[in-house]
């Protein structure tokens, strides 16, 4: 899923303090599952803002409302009353949420409460690991099902660099070396020959480097 972390409270204050009525809009999908921007967190952020603004004598109301997904028109439409009441909508969704709000409510000020960081897998509770970089041309069939584009610090396609040590990446002992994992997996599967083939250069034009992407379901164009 998409993961996002809440911004520092000071930054959120700077965005919202100049405005009287604030609507904290939560999103009950990815950011709820990653425990940062769902209904509970949105309400807690609203509480925190109320306490802070009350402490500093800032007028206005801080409300919270949560929709199932902020990346869909209909859900955003369902909170129109709350949005209309607010001077600024602070979204705790991934960056799609506030941009969706902008699309849906062109006249409304919108601010992101979150920094969107990745698409991750929940390896254990409270730990999300980046597994996909949305590169647009999946190559993991050649790498034992482990993505070096997302999981190697240098997006190497042809094996581990000289910084791989004891299964760890050179950038941090916290980070596993994706290529060690790929090697181990291919070795276990008896598929090490795969690694003799030179892969790439990669077609980065299929990724975000090729410009903003649009996906359409074929056969449904107007």
């Amino acid at each position, binding site marked *: 899923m998409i993961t996002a972390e809440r911004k520092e*409270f000071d930054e959120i204050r700077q965005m919202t303090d100049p405005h009287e009525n604030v609507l904290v809009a939560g999103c009950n999908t990815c950011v709820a599952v990653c425990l940062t921007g*769902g209904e*509970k967190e949105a309400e807690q952020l609203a509480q925190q803002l109320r306490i802070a603004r009350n402490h500093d004598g800032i007028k206005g109301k801080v409300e919270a409302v949560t929709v199932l997904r902020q990346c869909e028109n209909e859900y955003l439409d369902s909170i129109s009353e709350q949005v209309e009441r607010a001077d600024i909508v602070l979204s705790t969704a991934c960056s799609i949420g506030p941009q969706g709000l902008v699309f849906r409510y062109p006249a409304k000020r919108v601010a992101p409460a979150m920094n969107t960081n990745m698409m991750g897998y929940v*390896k254990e509770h409270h730990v999300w690991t980046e597994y996909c970089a949305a590169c647009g041309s999946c190559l993991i069939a050649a790498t034992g099902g482990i993505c070096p584009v997302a999981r190697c610090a240098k997006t190497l396609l042809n094996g581990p660099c000289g910084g791989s040590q004891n299964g760890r990446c050179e950038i941090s002992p916290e980070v596993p070396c994706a290529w060690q994992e790929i090697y181990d997996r291919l070795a276990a599967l008896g598929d090490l020959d795969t690694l003799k083939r030179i892969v790439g250069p990669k077609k980065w034009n299929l990724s975000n480097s090729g410009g903003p992407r649009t996906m359409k379901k074929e056969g449904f164009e107007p």
Partner: protein
Amino acid sequence: MANQTATLRSFSRPVPGDELRRPPCEVACPIRTDAQRYIQLVAEGRSAEALAVVRKTNPLPQVIGRICPHPCEDACRRGQVDEPIAICNLKRVASDGAKAAELGFKPPKAAFTTGKKVVIIGSGPSGLAAAHDLALMGVQPVVFEKQPEAGGFLRSGILSYRLPKNILDEDIDYIRGMGVEIKTGVRVGEDVDFSDLAQEFDAVLIAVGLSESRSLPVPGAGLPQVLLAVPYLEAVNAGRPVPELGKEIIVIGGGNVAIDVARSARRLTGGKVTMVCLEADYEMPAHSWEIEDATAEGIGIICSQGPNAIIGEDRVEGLQVKKCESVFDGQGRFAPKFCETELSLISGDTVIIAIGQMSNLAFLPDTGPDINERGILIFDREQCTTTRRGVFAGGEVVTGPGAAVNALASGKRAAIAIAHYLGVAVDFPEEPVAIGEVPAAVAEKVKPAPRRKMPARPAGGRLQDFNEVELGLTEVEARCEASRCLLCTAGARYSQLKCIACLTCVRVCPYGAPWADKDGLGGISPERCQACGICFTQCPAKAIDLTLLSENDIEREIGVALANESGDVEFGCWYSQSRVEPEAGLVLLPCTGRLSAGLILNAFEQGAGKVYVAVCSESEDGHFIHGHRQARAAVAEAQKAIEEAGLGPESIEVRLEPELKCKKI
């Protein structure tokens, strides 16, 4: 943070309809007492509210709190962990505590809105229960009692060392106080005519109980020193002398009445008292704790012997008995088999027969209601009706002998039947279904805590008088005992509508209660849930709340606590019974592990100056697994939030419980 588990459990789907199921104690209780709720209130030290919960279903709370054979305790799931909760004793604590606080004894004034009147014949438990419930339903009851005082067998049959008379009086006075009229010393059939009553009132309830002792057709039964249990007990209870009593008393019978007879005889005479019964020791119908008490008081029990003859010319000299080889037949029916040749003699100068009771229905006219060939009232168990329209029956007259609480249940059912007959829109309550047993894996994780023993007077001293033997649990002990409750069905409730299938609860629950399937459908197994609240604090979609002390409840309690002068709040723990900041307003939680950061922030939003959170030591889990860790995590999160918001981080303080009383054994 709570339970770092990297592997998901394998899920098993529990029986559907979890949300409708109830604690087994409640289901086992004939009057469906919400025992768990009052136990929780006792745990919090809120006796008066606990008593109010008892009173919701129980018209004789003090009486039942002393003499109930507590089927609830047999069903109690704590018994699958170690020993059942002392539910009955805690009921007594609720009423004793409320009484000490002078609360909970002011009866509600009944408003007889229907204008209908019912006559109830008999003021035993079933009659009183029916009267109480009818009054609450707007029907005016008038109770007729042949004895000079109300209470039926509770007064005449149960001795004051088990049920002090003032306690019975208080419970009856409460019912009287509601507006129920009890006419004592009036014999229906002699002083008033049954048919006249049936004419005058809109309905009749026969609740006369089993007021006559059965005798024994054996030689010598007519001797003057051969007594029957009921008249004997009536005399003892009324304080009348029983001149026939000698120094060597034989009690025939193995039931609870026989035990009462034996224990009272021992008190009155100080002599030798021996019980003789047909049943083997393991078959005796008396409750095991009654047998223990009797034995402790020096009463001998001779089992598997049937009376053959009472020996003596003009005075009783002994009882000849024959060996009883079996009491019941293959179908479990009463059909004793004796060895007629194996005779023995028990010497004694008095025999009291306590082998059972029957009802006296001589007051009923020929016009009905009808009686069958065995002299038993013809009765519809379901509808509580007799063969005569408008005449109902309830209690042991129709159910046969049993516990007082069963008589209450029967009386309460009759009350509903009567009210319905009189046009009140009521119906019999739905039969609740209990949750299942505690899975072994969960039982292992429950913090051990021994059942608190009811303090009793030493056997030697208590034989000197008829004062109450059981002394009642102290408040600390009662709260410790109440804290052992597993809070069956009072834990996490989850909303399928709000659930986003994130699996957080599945991962954080220390007891493995939440489950989910591949489609993201799930639930929380009430059998496994211990109501610790961790899932509630962590659920990102707010799809989980707690049945007992929901988020709203806690927020409301915060508001109440803030009415305190200090303007500070302490989140305290049931189980410790101690305070970390006595000046602050108290919000008592089963465990502060159920605090979310949001609830702490809510206290500040409601104006708290400072928030104190009681937690137990990091080195050991308190009542719940991970409870203190969860509490600390919530505090850390709230602390960061308020610090960012410009309040001092010192506004929240975590304090260790100074004393965990419930940890003490």
